[in-house]
């Protein structure tokens, strides 16, 4: 599948690995693909910015997703962290960064399948970062949804913009 990716789209996949690693994730998730598009200068990244998304703020919001879903259960991650660090030292609860290549999560793999599907659906042979973004939006990931909602970016509007930029 990757042989049909443009350099731009390949860059997204490589950056997604870096983004995932920087946040201590053990897998590449759809949100990492999303952020990789957002910080890139491809068509998809440009459409995202035109839709009103700030990449830095998106990154910050993405890092808060774990704390947010735990808070919904009544678990205060910061409180847990401070207690654990009191016993085990600073940073004890931080995820360990994994050596080697990070694998794609099932949802991220599905995003890439949807990337291919979106290009086929648009009758295009080459896959660029806009297709990757369409693929990510197609899997309706909670982390991506939270980042979009944080900045009032409507996923349906974003999808329309992405498809419109292909037609132009």
């Amino acid at each position, binding site marked *: 599948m990757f042989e049909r990716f443009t350099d731009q789209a390949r860059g997204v996949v490589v950056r997604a690995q870096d983004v995932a690693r920087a946040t201590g994730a053990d897998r590449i998730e759809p949100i990492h693909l999303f952020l990789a598009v957002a910080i890139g200068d491809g068509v998809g990244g440009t459409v995202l910015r035109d839709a009103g998304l700030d990449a830095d703020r998106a990154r910050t919001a993405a890092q808060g*997703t774990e704390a*947010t*879903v*735990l808070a919904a259960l009544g678990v205060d991650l910061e409180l847990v962290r401070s207690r*654990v660090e009191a016993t085990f030292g600073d940073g004890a609860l931080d995820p360990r960064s994994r050596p080697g290549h990070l694998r794609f999560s099932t949802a991220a793999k599905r995003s890439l399948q949807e990337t291919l599907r979106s290009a086929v659906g648009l009758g295009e042979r080459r896959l660029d970062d806009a297709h990757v973004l369409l693929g990510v939006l197609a899997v309706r990931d*909670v982390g991506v*949804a939270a980042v979009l*909602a*944080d900045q009032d970016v409507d996923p349906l509007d974003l999808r329309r913009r992405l498809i419109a930029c292909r037609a132009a």
Partner: protein
Amino acid sequence: MASPTDAVATAAAADDPAVGLRGVRALRDLADRLEVLQVHAARDRGWSWQEVAEALGVSRQAVHKKHARSRKEP
């Protein structure tokens, strides 16, 4: 600026299984990280693998397989 909690609440209703399942996963991940810290602390204090296993409610083999290598113990 909306807080991240508001963002998730907006993105998906509180009864959305996608949010609930993500919460389960976050709890499990948190428990795993706590387990590593506590198992290492227990071993440092001389607990046997059997004692650690009983405290965790799992078999000695399971706890040994999961943690011995990260501690480079036989």
